[in-house]
């Protein structure tokens, strides 16, 4: 047992080195010094404000990852998570728009709007789930299609019914009045509420998957659909339910994007956290608690990479290269480990 753990850690460290090594080669190829670049990327994160900025991205990323862990457990590739975040943001914006002129307490309105975002996310996920369960459409294709629909809908709303007075612009809808923003830490862009929602989300998923009968059965569905069915687990209901839960958590991510970050609906409101969340979920291999540091690391890469264009005149998409390489090599290393390690 101990031997396997050490063995696994060894392989993963090796994969980490390899990913950074290849990324360094990419940097060398464009004439940059990898050492300097890593130093600038991570060195820039040393201030309170920067850590807060990382946490601003960490919260929605962690929520999307939390949702994906559930669908992964059910053996589903929920690529539609991006659209579920977007639709969640639309739901939140809708409720804020409807209630912003009402006499209701602003805090209550925010809470309702976040709840609406979760509902909307779940609804969008239910579509992908229904397509899969009743239409026989693979969730990858259904989800991808629904992502495009959600983006198109956002653009329609931003340029159409929800446009700013006299203006139609990519920059989004009119920002909501300040009382409808989640309160921030003094002098930072980070809302404590966003952290609370994210932590509650991941802890919920941790207990769901590790400590409940439901989680166990869900994993059974994911590991062997047919066997689970024969054992009497209501398989399609479990799959649908995993979609709903994932959608609700992604919707919460979208709700945070509106209430804590942008304070309005923008066309790219999901900020790619769904796709990034897929990578985090793959890396942590069902371990919900591991998602907390890994998501933080990925968010830190995103924020740190802003230094590349500023200091080195390099494109910040390098962070995406590094993230992709990490996932690739960790998965490869796991495969290699299983093949190279003699079975006990």
């Amino acid at each position, binding site marked *: 047992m101990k031997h396997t753990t050490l063995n696994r850690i060894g392989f993963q460290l090796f994969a980490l080195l390899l990913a950074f090594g290849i990324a360094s080669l990419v940097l060398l190829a464009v004439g940059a010094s*990898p050492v*300097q670049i890593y130093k600038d990327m991570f060195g820039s994160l040393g201030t309170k404000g920067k850590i807060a900025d990382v946490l601003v991205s960490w919260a929605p990323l962690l929520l999307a990852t939390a949702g994906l862990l559930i669908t992964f457990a059910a053996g589903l590739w929920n690529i539609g998570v991006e659209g579920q975040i977007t639709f969640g943001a639309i739901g939140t914006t809708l409720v804020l728009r409807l209630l912003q002129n009402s006499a209701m307490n602003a805090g209550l309105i925010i809470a309702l709007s976040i709840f609406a975002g979760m509902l909307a996310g779940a609804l969008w996920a239910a579509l992908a789930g229904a397509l899969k369960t009743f239409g026989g459409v693979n969730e990858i294709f259904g989800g991808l299609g629904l992502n495009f629909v959600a983006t198109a809908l956002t653009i329609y709303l931003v340029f159409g019914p929800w446009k700013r007075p006299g203006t139609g612009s990519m920059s989004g809808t009119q920002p909501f009045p300040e009382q409808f923003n989640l309160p921030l830490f003094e002098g930072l862009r980070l809302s404590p509420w966003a952290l609370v929602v994210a932590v509650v989300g991941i802890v919920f998923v941790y207990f769901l998957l590790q400590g409940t009968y439901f989680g166990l059965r869900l994993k059974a569905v994911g590991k062997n659909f047919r066997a689970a069915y024969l054992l009497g687990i209501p398989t399609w209901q479990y799959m649908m339910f995993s979609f709903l839960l994932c959608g609700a958590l992604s919707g919460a991510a979208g709700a945070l994007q509106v209430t804590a970050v942008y304070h309005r609906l923008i066309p790219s409101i999901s900020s790619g956290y769904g796709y990034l969340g897929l990578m985090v979920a793959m890396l942590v291999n069902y371990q919900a608690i591991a998602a907390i540091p890994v998501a933080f690391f990925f968010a830190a890469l995103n924020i740190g990479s802003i230094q590349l264009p500023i*200091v080195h005149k390099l494109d910040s998409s390098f962070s995406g290269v590094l993230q992709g390489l990490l996932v690739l090599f960790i998965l490869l290393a796991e495969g290699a480990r299983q093949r190279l390690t003699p079975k006990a």
Partner: protein
Amino acid sequence: MRTIVTRFAFLALALMLVISACSPAAPAATEPPAVSTAPAEPYVFGLLMVGPYNDHGYSQAHYEAGKYVEEKIGAKMVYIDKVNTADRPGTTPDQLAGDLVAQGAKLVIFSSDDMKDAATAFAKANPNIYVIMGSGDQVWKEAPNYEAIPNLSDIMGRMEYGKMIAGCAAALTTQTGQIGYLGPLINDETRRLAASAYLGAKHCWVAEGKNPADLKFKVTWVGFWFNIPGFTADPTQIVDDFFNSGYDVVMSGIDTTEAMVEAGKFAAEGKSVWAVPYDYEGACEVSPKICLGVPYFNWKPMYLEAITAASQGTFTSSFQWRGPDWSDLNNPDTTSVGFLKGEGLSAENSTKIDAFIADLAGGLNLWTGPIKLQDGSVYLADGVVATDPQVWFLPQLLEGMEGQSAAE
């Protein structure tokens, strides 16, 4: 057994690669951040651009102005381009401005209208950092959303003149009497600039003894300052549609050069088409032969003034909306907007343009009534000259122009 050996050999090789990659490389050809070998620390200012710094358009005009300030007063610019949520997902302009401040910037330029809310928020949250809002109007007392923000100034050139001259060149050149205008997104600024182009076109069309009703002027909006695939309409497609449906001159109102590129292609196929780029003085270089000339922003003098004042501690919040230097439209040190003629403008029309510029310099104001809005309502009665706010906050396109006045 053998496969295991080969696998280990492969892994060892990969490890060597990693080690060699991680060893210190030759000194990179990048400049160290905010550190100078000069005896005095240079004044550092930051620039946020909405598009790429080398877009041959709006963003590049700002970038070159920043370079100019660096040269003139030995200041140092730190910048970040593509500041929009599609290119830099998850970021906000005020967050990126914070990154520039971390690099030592004491003043940050938010150069695009898109960043107005963020500029306001940033200026309020950072009272010790000066903020320039390019094209903004927050601190203009005449603006409906006026706010006193002591560390923020709005800076804009009176591009209305540039657009009028460009519109005139288009009207003098068109053979079909149809001018297409590639609009970015719909707001006060873009409405007044499209309208100014139309006023210039109509003026010169009528001066040729032609009937204004025979001049077609159509605006098609892209949805943003430049193309973002999947999010905006495709400007290339719009320009092609113009040229394929009888329009022979396309004026660009967007940050990038699609109108020029497409006009160049159509001309290469033997079609008689022309284009008028926008924003950046070097924009004609993209397709010189079909370029009628470019109305461009010259941010240099206003940036130099504001940044110099900031570096000396004499910055005061103000709204600046400056016109061309009529004695020399293309003097980089004095003019705020310019017009550089292109090779596509005939010698005869070039003379007419010069006369038109002379008229404008002499006080000709095309924003004089009678001017009706697109819905037919009177905006300026006969002989009434528009006030600055009436021009800045034009609520609709003008009568005679085709295209959306407001987002649907």
